[in-house]
């Protein structure tokens, strides 16, 4: 039972356009969501997070949207740049357990074409 799903294994966009990466989750107890970016041969790097009390969080070119009723979140990158080409992982966790343990999706490979 995969609790965090990223249904698109890959996404290709043109430089300057918007990239939208999607993530769905099944566990309604998740109240914290994070996006990570991973380059080859490196560990994932934290990008942005959102708590369930919000529906949007923005940081520069990156915006995460949360739709709790649909158990869906998305990461928007505007404008996309070739350096954004990487694997993006969605992760979810429960802050109430104070465990900090996150459940990750399988990742979406983003390619931004110059």
């Amino acid at each position, binding site marked *: 039972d995969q609790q965090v799903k990223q249904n698109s294994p890959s996404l290709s966009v043109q430089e300057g356009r918007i990239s939208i990466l999607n993530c769905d989750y099944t566990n309604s107890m998740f109240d914290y969501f994070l996006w990570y970016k991973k380059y080859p041969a490196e*560990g994932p790097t934290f990008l942005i997070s959102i708590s369930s009390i919000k529906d949007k969080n923005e940081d520069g070119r990156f915006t995460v949207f949360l739709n709790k009723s649909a158990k869906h979140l998305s990461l928007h990158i505007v404008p996309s740049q070739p350096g954004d080409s990487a694997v993006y992982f969605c992760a979810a966790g429960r802050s109430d357990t*104070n465990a*900090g343990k*996150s459940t990750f999706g399988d990742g979406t490979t983003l390619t931004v074409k110059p």
Partner: protein
Amino acid sequence: GAGVSQSPSNKVTEKGKDVELRCDPISGHTALYWYRQSLGQGLEFLIYFQGNSAPDKSGLPSDRFSAERTGGSVSTLTIQRTQQEDSAVYLCASSLAWTDYGYTFGSGTRLTVV
């Protein structure tokens, strides 16, 4: 150090042998996590250490896997009698406040069991 350090970066071992993977977290981070990523898969939680509390071992796939964290700092993940399905990238991460800053991951140890 400035980041999470893992060693070795690559390890090739024969089936049936034991291996030890080392993680040196960021100084001051009380939480330490081990995840693994098999080819084409997401990050699978293995074990979590938080301060002096008993570790959360709920993700360890079998009793061949064990981990220690000595002195609240360095951690060692040990895999006994390795099997081919243990081949993966083993990622260590540490955190101070995972809800706002996510984890800081190391670059991982790529384990290949032949």
